[in-house]
């Protein structure tokens, strides 16, 4: 039985003019086998869906100017534009309520409540510098219909499964969309060392070779 092997795939810069499934087919098809799982970075999927904006194009509200001050600096919402971008999608009153409840929860030692309540984009949005040029000056939202995108990838490439993932160098891996039969926690463990590399390495696709024969079995 072969071991799981990670194969990053280099592509050209992907833009809103591209279809992500077409891009994956173009660059990865020759390397994909029926037992593999194809993973793609969520920010790249979002870019192909046009889910990005420039800070200069956002109108910042008073609440965003206040609330961003209470987000730790490492978070995308610590900038007034990251905060406004999330408010535009999730609603500013929802974000305010999440922050109030999150603050109270912190007082009793419970972390992460704000991100649970503020909506999916609070966890997925990438502030400027979060993606490679020419999108480094953009705020990139999380993708929409991520599991549907994963299913389209699986069907087009004929692989075991596919996933849209958010992985970074801080040992954080999150499955945003996934096809049935692929185990999310197992995928996160496999991808935890960020085989996608940093933004400028242009490897937004990672093929997990032999997943069905090894990791898939282990997850059962």
């Amino acid at each position: 039985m072969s071991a799981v092997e990670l194969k990053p795939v280099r592509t050209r810069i992907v833009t809103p003019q591209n279809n992500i499934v077409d891009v994956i087919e173009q660059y990865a098809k020759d390397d994909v086998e029926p037992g593999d799982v194809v993973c793609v970075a969520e920010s790249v999927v979002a870019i192909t869906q046009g889910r990005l904006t420039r800070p200069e194009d956002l109108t910042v509200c008073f609440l965003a100017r206040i609330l961003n001050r209470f987000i730790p600096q490492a978070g995308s919402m610590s900038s007034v534009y990251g905060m406004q971008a999330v408010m535009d999608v999730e609603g500013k009153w929802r974000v305010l309520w999440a922050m109030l409840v999150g603050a109270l929860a912190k007082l009793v030692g419970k972390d992460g409540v704000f991100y649970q309540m503020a909506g999916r984009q609070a966890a997925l949005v990438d502030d400027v510098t979060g993606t490679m040029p020419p999108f480094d000056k953009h705020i990139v939202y999380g993708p929409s219909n991520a599991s549907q995108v994963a299913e389209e990838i699986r069907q087009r490439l004929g692989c075991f499964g596919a996933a849209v993932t958010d992985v970074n160098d801080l040992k954080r891996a999150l499955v945003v969309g996934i096809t049935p039969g692929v185990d999310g926690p197992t995928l996160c463990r496999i991808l935890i060392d960020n085989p996608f590399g940093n933004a400028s390495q242009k490897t937004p696709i990672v093929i997990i070779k032999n997943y069905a024969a090894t990791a898939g079995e282990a997850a059962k």
Partner: protein
Amino acid sequence: MIWLGGIIVGAALLALAVWLYILRQGDAHFEFVVDRRTPFALTELTTQRAVFTSRVPFVNNGTQDGTIMDAFTRHHLPCEQFDGVEVASRLHLETAVRDDGYFESVIFYKGTGSAVVVTVILTAKNGDIQATLQDMVDMPVDIMYQIVARSEWYIHKTRMVMTSEEIQQALAAGISKGQG
């Protein structure tokens, strides 16, 4: 009515506390220290053109992390003042050398900094750069930079002057391999 007054006073105290918190938190503040830049050095010389570079340090001396979203140069040499050369200029981060004039957004934590390398390309209109530069005048070069941090983005500029004297000294010293 007492409860109403209590609510108003409470809201005012909360607003004051938030305002003080924000005031104390502060923001990023970037400074391009042109007084500590290196003199322009000659990095390329042909019959027609000369290329000069200077290293300019900068620091985020604010109280918050900040992002330089963009940075670029703007040179000022009107033909009314000196019509002998065509000027092009650009900059890149010292730690991210590139020649396309693009500046990749980058975060600098509070109290940290780096340097940019400013490149100025002078091309003689008459085809003889060395002769032309004998009459070159002082040329202001602005470093323009767009910052975003806790507050809304802004563009600021810091002026440096490429003096005719340092151009002559750089030409006399010949090609330097130190910067670029």
